[in-house]
């Protein structure tokens, strides 16, 4: 019977489910309020300092009647979306990110900071609690730890090919994360989330006073701000792939397993 698929089994622990949905809300708020904060100074720099007279490696803004995104020497016209767009009242705005992508929807740096800096605590304390709890209950060792066999390039390549053909495991094999899933989840939990939190802290002058090394590690406050922005978009990229995989794997079953914890094993071929 086991391994055939079709039966409803326990999949995700309560701690995982609570953290998942807390994070879903928190990261969305962090992203949208963060885009509003970026709108206050839509330029990014490398190094310790950086302001209008200094060279920016990324800039979003209006040039004449166009919206433009500049990255290094590359210029992309983004009229209607970035740098020049129409707001909900039909007025032309010349801010970087449009109203539908920001919290609040109308320009307010102070309100965006209110949201961003409050939810930052939820993100940081949530990650800390989840990591400690997952270490304690064995989730990390059992489900996320990548074994020596899985690290082999041939194994990873095999998984890449299977994914590219949209050939997903069935039956009990679905209960174990494959190596690409493990890499994605470990990358988010151990690299992207800690990095986005630490680069956020590095921008705080109060933190910088007692922990010079945080900003020092990144080579300057403006570099930390740039990395913060890049990591935020890496998290967006993860989110898009994550949603695509959920849709491909059967959205009802996947979402149910993350809400109730119960998951129906996909039937094996030919059953």
């Amino acid at each position, binding site marked *: 019977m086991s391994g055939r698929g079709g039966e409803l089994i326990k999949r995700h622990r309560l701690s995982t489910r609570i953290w998942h949905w807390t994070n879903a809300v928190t990261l969305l708020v962090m992203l*949208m309020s963060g885009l509003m904060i970026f709108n206050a100074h839509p330029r990014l720099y490398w190094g*310790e300092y950086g*302001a209008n007279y200094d060279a920016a490696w990324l800039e979003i803004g209006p040039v004449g009647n166009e919206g433009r995104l500049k990255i290094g020497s590359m210029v992309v016209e983004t009229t209607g979306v970035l740098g020049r767009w129409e707001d909900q009242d039909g007025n032309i705005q010349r801010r970087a990110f449009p109203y539908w992508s920001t919290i609040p929807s109308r320009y307010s740096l102070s309100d965006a900071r209110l949201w961003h*800096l409050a939810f930052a*605590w939820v993100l940081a304390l949530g990650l800390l609690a989840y990591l400690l709890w997952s270490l304690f209950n064995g989730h990390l060792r059992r489900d996320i730890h990548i074994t020596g066999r899985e690290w082999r390039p041939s194994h990873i390549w095999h998984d890449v090919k299977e994914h590219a053909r949209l050939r997903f495991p069935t039956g009990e094999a679905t209960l174990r994360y494959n190596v690409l899933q493990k890499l994605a989840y470990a990358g988010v939990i151990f690299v992207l989330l800690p990095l986005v939190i630490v680069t956020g802290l590095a921008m*705080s002058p*109060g933190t910088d*006073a007692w922990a010079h090394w945080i900003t020092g590690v990144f080579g300057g*406050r*403006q570099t930390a701000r740039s990395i913060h922005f890049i990591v935020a978009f890496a998290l967006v990229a993860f989110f898009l792939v994550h949603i695509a995989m959920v849709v491909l794997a059967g959205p009802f079953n996947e979402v149910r397993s993350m809400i109730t914890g119960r998951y129906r094993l996909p039937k094996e071929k030919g059953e």
Partner: protein
Amino acid sequence: MKRHELVLSRRKLLGAGALGAGGLLLSGCDRLNSSPGFRSLLSNAEDMHMGSQRLFNRNALAREYTEADMSPRFRANGNRGVTDAAYRQAFAGDFADWALVVDGAVSRPLQLPLAALQSMPQREQITRHDCVEGWSAIGKWQGPQLGRVLEMAGLLPSARYIVFHCADSFGSTPYYESIDLVDAFHPQTILAWRMNGQMLPEEHGAPVRARIERQLGYKHAKFVMRIEAREGISGLYGGKGGYWEDASDYAWYAGI
């Protein structure tokens, strides 16, 4: 009517659903944003920022840099000039007849001419100025420590806050800022009258600008005319302790 026109395609349905959900989310966030209850919930984080940072940074010094690290050009922000007649007159006379007022909850109110500030022991520091907007500039600042000035005036035990009253204003609302005594007596908190080796220019707050090195730029009051020691800040202007705090609900503690 053809059959396929009657049937909403799945893509259209999904698209409409996403748009609808997005619209709900946006209007929901905006509604929360204007709810006083939700805002006060969020603003609890300010106490957590200040509490957690004071745990570690009470005596910590902001990073100091070398001349090689300085911004080639230091951006000026906020009010870059003052229209007030008394200020213009003092400015025209190189502030020779001007004096900084120190009063409020002090035992010896003072009037300190610029020359008096210049003859006090000086502190010179090259620090990074972080604007709330996100940019940073590194510059060299010089002036007496605020703590020394407050010791001269003799703070009364009731004093809890130091308020900077400024000559600039937005419309008819004057600029002001306030800090607590931890920052007031911090060794790097100086009344800067010199910047990058020259007299402080008007756009950067001549004749005197407060340097509150472990907080964001809007705390660094420019064009300081009067320093007032107070028991509380709730009775002053909008009651939130600073121009931007009153006008746009910026956090009073700007260490983050």
